[in-house]
């Protein structure tokens, strides 16, 4: 097994782990945010406009963490900077 094979196989494993672990936290957080927002809307239906706007912005902010993980996985898979050290 030469060095290039090691780097490539470790990269694939790392990309899978990045998506798995990076998706777990935001998924839980999104579920919790939605639950709380629906709870608040059920309690105060007249405030639903404000709650929904805050929910959308908050969900985008939470989701961006998963998106960062996705971008890192893409960099690992398609534009891996470490292969450049090995393949001169």
């Amino acid at each position, binding site marked *: 097994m030469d060095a290039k094979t090691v780097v490539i196989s470790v990269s694939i494993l790392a990309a899978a782990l990045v998506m798995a672990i990076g998706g777990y936290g935001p998924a839980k957080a999104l579920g919790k945010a939605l639950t709380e927002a629906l709870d608040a809307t059920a309690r105060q239906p007249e405030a639903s406009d404000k709650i929904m706007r805050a929910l*959308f*912005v908050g969900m985008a902010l939470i989701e961006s963490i998963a998106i*960062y993980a*996705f*971008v890192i996985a*893409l960099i690992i898979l398609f534009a891996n900077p470490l292969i450049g050290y090995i393949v001169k």
Partner: protein
Amino acid sequence: MKVFNLFPETIFSIGPVQITDTVTTTWFVMAAIITICYLSTRKLSIKPSFFQEILEAIFEAMEKTIKDILPLDPWLVVPLLGTLWILIGFSNLAGLIPGVKTPTADLNTTFAFAFISFSMTHVIGITTQGLKGYLKHYKEPTWILLPFHLIAEVTRTVALAVRLFGNMLSGDMIAIILLGIVGLLVPIPFSLLHIIIGLIQAYIFGVLTLVFIAGGIRTKS
């Protein structure tokens, strides 16, 4: 490295500047928006036609959204945010046309948008309350937090760009991968989801810009 034909490719170059196909798609989107606006505002009247009514509804919705967040005259930022919302929304939806690449699935496009948002935050902050009054909000609770304010200026701009880019690229990628696996009808629900995500991301981009602008102004009131 060319993968899936999903990343931008250079079509031609003017001197050192390379024109990719996402750039030309953006030009076509701009031309489409200008044409729609020109055609529907040619004969304005008190009793509005169908298209005039649609445009007025869009503008009233934007004005209402801005009025809720910004404690100033909303028409100070309606031109900026209207441009961001409409242009990003149309660009996100342009990828649904077969054979057209989503312009916002290119990191350069989203960074350009984010840079506009970043610079206009400072410009509007300085024009509304002067240079001194604007700089005052950096030492808001205490002087100790100044470095964190400066770091936040950069990171939130980068986050704005990467969020839009990642969402759009992931939507395209899911569609292409599913097309490779299952073929005909299964990617359609994901494309529908992609429409919603595209519109929400355009809204989010504008609202976050608005929140940043309001955060630079809030100290006065």
